[in-house]
């Protein structure tokens, strides 16, 4: 479904993945405090090539780590205490569970406990792709957003992948940077922006009148595809791209719902307690009277992410299933 999105194919086209690489290139160039540490990221350039060529250009600042997620994050914390700006690349978001203690117990609590900030960025190649299976597909934003002291970014566009990564490194707090693997190669833009909305602000990805979809990351594109489709039936669906899920820009969501009266929250993560629950809880508690109909939510199914594409295509929300939910919400 997502393939329907218009992609620019000019010679200057840059992909979501290239934007991440470009941001890291700029960070290494501009800021001597920055270094990158992760598995296979030096000469090899990373499993997805997000650091291709950087080790060569910035010797000693782009380093291969042993297979030790806990120590990778632990070392970044120490380096951040000493004033550096480490970026940790996890090979897949799923493996960050092996570094979970250092992330949620150590990095997240450091500033509050000691007064000394802990500015690390952990890049999580996140989300599902065909054939990746239960251990290379997870969306872990809800886990990290639950813990105080972390900022969780979920860029959905090439531009945001670039500017938000720059901002993530600048922020004096630990940032979990959830980049979506499904967007790596598919998603393209004409070039890289020089200005950006700040973290913590959601973006109206498509304005509308009849209902709001609040979503993030790859699901922004499925939702936009759904909105395009429904537009041919005369429906005007507003799509909100959250950009960061912690903090969550409740104001922008509420402003949208105040215009549309209807809300569908869409996320690719597991159904219990994820971003969609938080969105609905906020709108229900803070904007109850704005709602003309019960809000709805759509998540992945409550099983591990299946390996086979036939199953995976049904496990995660898609433009098709979002459309079905939206028709229900619209009473159409």
């Amino acid at each position, binding site marked *: 479904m997502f393939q329907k999105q218009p992609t620019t194919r000019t010679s200057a086209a840059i992909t979501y993945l290239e934007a991440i690489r470009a941001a890291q290139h700029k960070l290494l160039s501009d800021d001597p405090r920055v270094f990158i540490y992760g598995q296979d990221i030096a000469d090899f350039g990373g499993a997805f090539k997000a650091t291709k060529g950087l080790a060569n250009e910035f010797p000693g600042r782009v380093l291969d780590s*042993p297979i030790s997620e806990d120590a990778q994050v632990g070392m970044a914390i120490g380096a951040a205490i000493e004033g550096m700006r480490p970026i940790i690349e996890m090979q897949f978001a799923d493996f960050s569970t092996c570094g979970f203690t250092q992330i949620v117990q150590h990095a997240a609590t450091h500033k509050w406990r000691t007064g000394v900030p802990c500015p690390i960025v952990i890049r999580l190649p996140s989300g599902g792709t065909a054939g990746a299976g*239960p251990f*290379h597909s997870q969306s872990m934003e809800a886990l990290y957003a639950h813990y105080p002291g972390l900022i969780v970014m979920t860029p959905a566009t090439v531009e945001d992948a670039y500017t938000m990564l720059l901002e993530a490194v600048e922020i004096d707090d630990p940032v979990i940077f959830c980049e979506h693997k499904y967007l790596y190669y598919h998603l393209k833009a004409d070039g890289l922006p020089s200005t950006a909305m700040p973290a913590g602000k959601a973006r109206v990805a498509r304005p509308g009148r009849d209902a709001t979809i609040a979503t993030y990351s790859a699901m922004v594109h499925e939702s936009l595809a759904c909105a395009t489709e429904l537009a041919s039936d005369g429906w005007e669906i507003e799509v909100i791209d959250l950009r960061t899920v912690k903090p969550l820009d409740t104001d922008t969501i509420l402003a949208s719902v105040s215009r549309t009266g209807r809300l569908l929250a869409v996320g690719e993560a597991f159904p219990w307690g994820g971003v969609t629950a938080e969105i609905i809880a906020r709108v229900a508690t803070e904007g109850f009277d704005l709602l003309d109909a019960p809000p709805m939510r759509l998540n992945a199914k409550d099983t591990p992410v299946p390996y086979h594409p036939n199953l995976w295509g*049904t496990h995660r929300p898609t433009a098709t299933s979002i459309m079905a939910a939206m028709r229900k919400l619209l009473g159409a």
Partner: protein
Amino acid sequence: MLQARAGLSTQPEANEDKERYLGVYRWMLLARVLEEKLAILYRGGKITGGVFLGRGQEALSAALGSALKKGDIFGPLIRDMAGRLAFGEDITDAARTYLGSRLGPMRGRDGNIHRGEPAKGYYAMISHLGAMVASVAGGLFARRLKGETGVVGATCVGDGATSTGSFHEGLNMAAVEKLPLVVIVANNQYAYSTSNARQYACEDLVQRALGYGIAGYKIDGTDPTACIETVFEAVARARAGDGPQMIVADLLRLVGHGEHDDFHYMSHALKVSPIGRDCLDVAREQLISAGWATPAHLDNLRDQASAEVENACSTALREPLPDPNQEDWCALHTRRLAEGAET
């Protein structure tokens, strides 16, 4: 550095040696032929997801699968096609998992290297490296509690996986419990693209055995004779109650990390060094020079393997794919406690 120890008991008769070697060789060959077929299918776009092969590591893996018995526990890793088959995996099930058949043991829910049949002692690895060490140990712990004796459990890791906390915790725990666990470290000199120099700083990983208080063996993983002797001995010692055994085998993977990888980073010097040898070539030489097989016999074995592989793959290819509408979207065994998938 520890060296392979002398044989546990009296040497088996030459005839036993021959049969054992030929048995192992058949599994090496079958794995090799099956993986070559999978590589072709992968390049032909017939396989979704990654394909990770064990080319070059078959002797080590097949020796382990052969040394284990029915009733033992095996937790293979990504390069253990040979060991899996030797341990008793149905080759059609192997093919099914790659080719997406709904009839495979994972029914399309998980793929390829993650397959297993835990109820038969053949555990299904998770991706998170090192995790299987503790779980195979736990299986052995359960067997002990149930009063079963003479059971062995084995698992394999790579050089990279030795850096994980899970590997350390699992092996230490197994040592404290003195469990009959055999851990094979296939040191193929690289973890994906990362060379040993960036993975550990000791002279040789076998030095870690001392620190866990377990037996350690060091072998050339490209030498099938060494693999068979040492692996069978370690398994026998574990079975006899000597506690965990760790074998570190040097070798190379003669393929990329996965079939997407051209392994350009691999050192030429290593490739042309003794550990760059193809264990199947070495086996052929050893078998022929020992007078245990003729070239014709070995060619014949390869033909048999090819037929078996073709048969398995064509069966799997004809089978139904997973169907999301027939799929049981329930992660729990206790159905009454499952929450409906929200749509």
